[in-house]
């Protein structure tokens, strides 16, 4: 996965913060944010995950026209997912279930930043489990750089393909 242009916008940060139950004004109130050390609106710690919005081929988003979408319409399933592209900012659902996620913050991510992201595969390994059969783990490492080419966030995701649905 590579993302050429991830615009970090205040309204997107506001919506993201709401969705994770975060009422901190630094994520939505520009006047308040101006008076803080960061001098403006910043992004919550897991915001980089929403880079999926800026991956044109992200396979966990229905395409315009709905073609190839595997969720339910009239019937329980539509088409099978067409490709294995996309990684949503460092692994996870593109590889089955999300097992782990790690972020390293080199700089504070701010509204107005324009990021690029490049993802490389990391380690992969297998494990047997009682709850879901054979587990295949694979790691991916995404580097987010800002408009000045500076490394802002390194995100490492670990995805797991399970043999069957996980017993709860």
């Amino acid at each position, binding site marked *: 996965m590579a993302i050429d242009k991830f615009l970090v916008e205040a309204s997107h940060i506001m919506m993201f913060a709401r*969705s994770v139950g975060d009422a901190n004004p630094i994520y939505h109130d520009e006047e308040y944010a101006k008076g803080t050390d960061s001098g403006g609106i910043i992004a*919550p710690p897991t915001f980089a995950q929403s880079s999926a919005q800026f991956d044109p081929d992200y396979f*966990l988003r229905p395409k315009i026209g709905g073609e190839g979408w595997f*969720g*339910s319409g009239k019937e*329980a399933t539509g088409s099978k997912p067409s490709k294995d592209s996309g990684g949503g900012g460092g692994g996870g659902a593109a590889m089955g279930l999300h097992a782990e*996620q790690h*972020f390293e*913050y080199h700089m504070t991510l701010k509204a107005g930043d324009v990021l690029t992201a490049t993802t490389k595969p990391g380690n992969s390994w297998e494990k047997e489990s009682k709850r879901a059969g054979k587990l295949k783990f694979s790691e991916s490492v995404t580097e987010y750089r800002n408009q000045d080419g500076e490394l802002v966030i390194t995100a490492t995701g670990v995805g797991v393909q399970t043999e069957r649905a*996980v017993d709860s």
Partner: protein
Amino acid sequence: MLKENEIKVGDTHSSVLVEDLKRTQIVQYAGASGDYNPLHTDEIFTTQIAGYPSVFAHGMLSMGLTGTMLTDYVGDGALKKYGVRFTNQVWPGDTLTGKATIIEIRQEDDGKVVDLMIETTNQDNVSVITGNATAKIES
């Protein structure tokens, strides 16, 4: 930001992250994050095709909710690292509590930091997230 003279190893901070998690909040997270995997929002697909008892939350929603507790504690822009393992699924109706425990206060090249152990549990006291974080502090 936390102040070195006001904290010690073993200190904890915890808060309720969500009570009776609603399916709509999961939809809200799908929309904001861009992860529209039907396992999280499409009950028909998830029960009939994928074989789960109901839709369930994105792991990243649990990590995001836990992150809210974490930044409320360590302050804005203070995090240097934040990583988690997703140890159990989170279902609609779950009530989650997040907890951060100080395990070390130490010096890094560019200043003092605190290492934290993170755990989020559900209403049955089952762990759904375990992890670690490192944050800058004022010395």
